[in-house]
């Protein structure tokens, strides 16, 4: 191999940089899995503590659902959503979802921060004021 | 072929690093603009397009001017342009890249730019603009690279390139026609609502672009052993002359329509640009500079004795380019917004961050141009040419 040593050193440096994120965290305590809290006062008041759809559905599909809601409300003029068990809800992040889940920091942000996702919803959609905020 | 761009003299690398410094400064400015918003520019609710879109508009013309050398050579076998076509094509590539960058920095939500592709809107001229610019960039890269590669190997270009060349010749006028349509189809802006908008763009493209190409060819001749050829440069000079005359003529037509019909909507933008209205006169010195430069340019271009003198030709080309750059790259765009739909005047002037970003994009354009020209020249120098473009016997 020509320039053998240069190549080997280069490969070692490359592996070092590429695996740096893993090496940096070796030995450190692992980040605990996210625990979104659903114990807001509004949810506590509910007789039947049920979201619009099931937890598993929401966990995997809430992003797509919100996108579809957006197109439905803004572009098609449909405001109401009928759940799989016949209930009616207004399709609104601000006025429906966040009315019950009024704790963005302990609910929405928990998972979003864990997976390092920054959805820009709240650049426009006003988040409910939480404890300690003016 | 890219490795030829990595070998160069001290001056070459000095130029590259200067460009990189300008790009760096502009990039930091852009981060500032991205964080705060377009409020850091001079644009306002009334003048909602400014320097960025103006520069884009002008550069679309420069990009299209590549066709001015490609068409005579490939369609009409005008051999004298044989060496300059690649310079024209590479100038087109650099110009289109600048166009796309100017559009990008002008957008309020640049991260959503792909929405134009995800939600195609054939009713929108801007959708078509994106389409034609992208295809034109692709065509020029494909054709320029292939032809140059063939020349490097010392063989004729592959025959499949020919149809792409023909398409690029037909495509070039489309990019500035579509860009002109951005303006010419808007009902509320009387400076722009003219049937000859696309024709004016054509005229300024085919005088501004070739004038830049002449300057670039002369610079290349000075610093390398590559010479585009006396005949090519003189032919381009004639093209610049005739299209500059056309351009000034078209401007005169606009003035006639406005001031003979005396319709206020048509007159007012021109009055604002050239004399100011009610004390608002920021653009007046700028527009008159453009006019004076145009007069100087024509004075030096029209008489063949002056045009054949290369030193005077340089002055004429600089004057032409600057005059058109001011007129199309600034005056036309800002003028369209003044007065506003309520006949009020809001003036516009670029801010410092806006200027730094603009300079950085020009530097990126020149960087692309330098690298591409270095490649082209290195390859063409291999086949040794003498000062007047005749192949030497080794």
């Amino acid at each position, binding site marked *: 191999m020509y320039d053998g040593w240069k190549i080997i050193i280069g490969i070692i440096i490359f592996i070092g940089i590429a695996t740096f994120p893993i090496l940096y965290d070796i030995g450190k305590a692992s980040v605990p899995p996210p625990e979104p809290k659903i114990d807001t006062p509004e949810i506590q008041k509910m007789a039947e503590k049920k979201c619009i759809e099931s937890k598993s559905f929401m966990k995997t599909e809430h992003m797509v659902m919100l996108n579809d809601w957006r197109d439905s409300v803004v572009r098609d003029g*449909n405001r109401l959503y009928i759940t799989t068990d016949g209930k009616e809800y207004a*399709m609104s992040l601000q*006025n429906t979802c966040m009315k019950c889940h009024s704790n963005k920091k302990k609910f929405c942000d928990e998972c979003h921060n864990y997976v390092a996702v920054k959805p820009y919803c709240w*650049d426009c959609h006003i988040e409910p004021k939480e404890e300690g905020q003016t | 072929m890219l490795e030829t761009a990595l070998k160069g003299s001290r001056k070459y690398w000095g130029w590259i690093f200067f460009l990189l410094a300008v790009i760096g400064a502009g990039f930091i400015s852009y981060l500032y603009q991205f964080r705060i918003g*377009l409020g850091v520019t001079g644009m306002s609710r009334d003048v909602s*397009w400014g320097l960025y879109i103006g520069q884009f508009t002008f550069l679309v013309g420069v990009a299209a001017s590549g066709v001015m050398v490609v068409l005579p050579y490939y369609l009409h076998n005008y051999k004298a342009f044989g060496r300059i076509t690649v310079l024209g094509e590479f100038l087109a590539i650099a110009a289109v890249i600048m166009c796309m960058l100017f559009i990008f920095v002008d957008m*309020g939500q640049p991260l959503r730019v792909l929405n134009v592709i995800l939600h195609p809107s054939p009713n929108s001229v801007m959708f078509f603009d994106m389409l034609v610019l992208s295809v034109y960039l692709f065509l020029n890269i494909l054709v320029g690279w292939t032809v140059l590669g063939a020349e490097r190997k010392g063989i004729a270009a592959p025959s499949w390139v020919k149809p792409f060349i023909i398409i690029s010749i037909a495509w070039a006028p489309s990019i500035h026609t579509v860009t002109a349509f951005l303006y010419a189809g808007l009902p509320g802006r009387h400076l722009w609502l003219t049937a000859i908008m696309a024709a004016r763009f054509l005229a300024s493209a085919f005088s501004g672009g070739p004038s830049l190409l002449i300057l670039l060819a002369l610079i290349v001749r000075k610093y390398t052993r590559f010479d585009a050829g006396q005949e090519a440069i003189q032919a381009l000079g004639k093209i610049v002359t005739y299209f500059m005359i056309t351009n000034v003529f078209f401007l005169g037509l606009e003035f006639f329509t406005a001031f003979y019909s005396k319709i206020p909507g048509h007159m007012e933008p021109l009055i604002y640009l050239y004399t100011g209205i009610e004390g608002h006169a920021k653009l007046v010195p700028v527009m008159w500079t453009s006019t004076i430069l145009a007069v100087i340019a024509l004075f030096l271009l029209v008489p063949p004795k002056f045009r054949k003198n290369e030193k005077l030709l340089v002055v004429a080309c600089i004057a032409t380019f600057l005059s058109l750059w001011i007129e199309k790259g600034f005056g036309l765009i800002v003028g369209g917004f003044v007065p506003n739909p309520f006949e009020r005047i809001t003036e516009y002037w670029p801010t410092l961050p806006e200027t730094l970003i603009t300079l950085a994009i020009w530097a990126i354009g020149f960087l692309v141009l330098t690298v591409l020209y270095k490649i082209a020249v290195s390859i063409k120098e291999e086949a040794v040419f003498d000062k007047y473009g005749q192949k030497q016997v080794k």
Partner: protein
Amino acid sequence: MSISRREFLKIASASALLGFGGISAFEILQPGQFEASQVMPDSKGLVAKRWAMVVDISRFRTEEDYKRCIEACHRIHNVPDVGNLKEEIKWIWKETYEHAFPGQKDEFLSEKIKDLPFLVLCNHCNNPPCVRVCPTKATFKRESDGIVMMDMHRCIGCRFCMAACPYGARSFNFRDPRPFINEANKLPYDTVFTNGQDREALIKKGHLSFPTRMRGVVEKCTFCYERLAVGLQPACVEASQGGLIFGDLEVPNSEVRKVLNEKYSFRRKPELGTYPSVYYILG
């Protein structure tokens, strides 16, 4: 088998492109989530084929009359006060006759008309140039009711619509609007505006809030589509106490049609062929 560096790079980039392209195509072409039966409009909502407004300028006599309408709109929609004219955002505002109708400028025009402020807003044209030019359909004319809408999620901030609008109806968010929104002044969008004299005495405050916008998008009046959806008239109409008449142009005996039938009406820049849906009458 040995391949050259060039061949390797060609194959690698082609594979990468195909890989990314394939994934993207899969994501983009995925079918939508809902079946048609799952969503529907609110039964309370007001429906029309073509919403229109008539501005009866004779009903606007004091400064208060204009302010009430403008503030109703700007308060429920969180319209920011940016503090300078350069970056001003306004959905509905006052203009003098000569500026709102520039083609009608005349030195011998009655002083009464010359100084009379007119309320101007987006005209929700039937042939809107702004919709024609939008490259992403972020602004579009709603099929159902003719409102020229804004989809803030899709707007790329190119401002082509602002150049196209012959009426200067659109505003751009040159920076983040949130710091400029008067928090104390906010109102829920389903607030019912009183017919009484006092601006503060509201019949019902409501509980639904309207989003703000972010920097980099264009905004304008959207005929209070969110209020229409819950059965309320637009805020400016309600607050105008009869100065603004709202209704369906396609219904022959609607309020707007009755007024247009009886009185002489005029629109802004009709010669441009935009067919505005906002009419003006002098009383």
